[in-house]
Structures are given as C-alpha cells and as structure tokens.
C-alpha cells in the first residue's frame, strides 16, 4: 500500500504564548519523524519565525484572529504551513537583511532565517485572505513516511 501523508492541524490564538507552543508541537513531530537534534532545532526555529511573522505582521497582535498550523508528513518530507488572517504579503517586499544598509535594522530577519533552516520556503497569498508560509524539510534517510526506523 502506497504511503499516505499524515497530517496534524492546530489552530492557535494570536498570543505571544502561541510562538513557544507552535515550536514545541512541531519539534515533537520532527523528533518522532527521526530528525537528528540539530535538524529538530532548525525546524523548530523556522516554525517559531513563521509564527512570529503571523503574530506580529500578519495578525498584528489582533486577538480576534487565529494562526493556523498544519504539519504534513509526506513520504519524503515534512511540510509545515503557517497561515495567518492578515492582509498577506509578497516575498519581494521583504528587504534583504544581508544588504549593508539593512544590517542594523532591528527587524526583518524572520523570512531569511526560515529559508536558512529549511530546504524550501514558499509564501502564498490565500484568496480568502492571509499569508500562508509553506516550509519543508526532507526526511532523514532511513525514515519512511515520517516514521522513525526501528532500533
């Protein structure tokens, strides 16, 4: 039987506490999927940055809005979606934090860090509104469909 994707969906309040919560949930899934400690940390950090983005810029601290997290374990990769209920944005609008003139900026590194820690990052503007960050990391070899290999 062909492996199917497993999926976890979580809806979080637009609260500061949701940043740690989202990171913790996704790190647990990453650990269970067989990722090594360093990659678990990177995945957690990337999700953390995605939720910070949703909290600060997407939902703008509005407690009436939600942050939607989906974790998918596909046959070869783990995919995390972070969706806010804001106005959306284009990646091209985000200044390059590595540019000399931006090095002393106190914000604007979240997207860059997500890209650095994950294998892939997309930003999609949802028709119904909101920005969806879709980030993925290839499962470690020997791990089938997100299952840790037997010891």
């Amino acid at each position: 039987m062909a492996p199917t994707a497993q999926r976890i969906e979580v809806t979080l309040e637009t609260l500061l506490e949701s940043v740690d919560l989202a990171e913790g949930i996704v790190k647990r899934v990453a650990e269970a999927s067989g990722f090594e400690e360093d990659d678990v940390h990177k995945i957690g950090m990337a999700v953390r940055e995605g939720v910070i983005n949703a909290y600060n810029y997407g939902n703008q601290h509005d407690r009436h809005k939600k942050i939607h997290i989906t974790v998918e374990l596909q046959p070869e990769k783990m995919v995390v979606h972070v969706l806010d209920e804001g106005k959306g944005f284009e990646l091209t609008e985000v200044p390059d934090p590595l540019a000399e003139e931006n090095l002393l900026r106190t914000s604007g590194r979240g997207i860059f860090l997500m890209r650095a820690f994950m294998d892939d990052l997309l930003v999609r503007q949802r028709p119904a509104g909101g920005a969806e960050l879709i980030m993925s990391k290839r499962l470690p070899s020997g791990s089938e469909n997100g299952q840790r290999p037997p010891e």
Partner: protein
Amino acid sequence: MASLQATSRRTGDVTVVDFSGKIVLGEGSAVLRKTVRELIEGGHRKILLNLADVDYIDSSGIGELVSAYTTVQGVSGELKLLQLTRRVHDILQITRLFTVFDVQSDEDTAVRSFR
C-alpha cells in the same frame, strides 16, 4: 522563572552582563532591552554582554542585540559580545552580524579590548 536572567558586575571600567537563558520574543528580549537601557542611564559606556549561557536566540532577540549595539554607540559607548554558544554563533554568522559586533572568546582579552 524568566526566560532570560541577567546579572551585572564590574571589571575595571567595563560592565560585564552575564546572561542565562533565551533571548527570544517577549520576556527574554525585554530583559535584554531593560538591562542595557538601565546601564546606559546609569552612565555605563563600556558594556560586555556575556552570552556563554545563552543557548537560543530568535529574530526578535537578534533585533534587540542590534538595538542595544546602536543605542550604546549612540551615546559614544562600546558594546561587545563574549563567548557565543554554537547556535547563537551560527545565527550571527549567517545574518552577517559578525561584521557588526566585536565578538570575543575570552573575558580578559575582551575587557582589555575596550578603548
């Protein structure tokens, strides 16, 4: 318990702040911000942030470090970093902030390096 603890001490005319915990969005970043602000208000101009016990920093924490740096520079002071853990080191490296901060690995050398 706060996600970041800070204690200050003096070595000659340099103020060393020993941090422990995480410099992240919320309480951690706020502790860093408050600590540096209070030092500046107290007239401290040579500040060494000891990050040997900081194992985690996010983009907000990086923003606060940069803000601390520019604020101290703005009052003609110096702010340096001491003993980065591997994860903090890697983040500062990939964000090119190693070209901004003076990062030292040894406290005595760090203290002597202030003008």
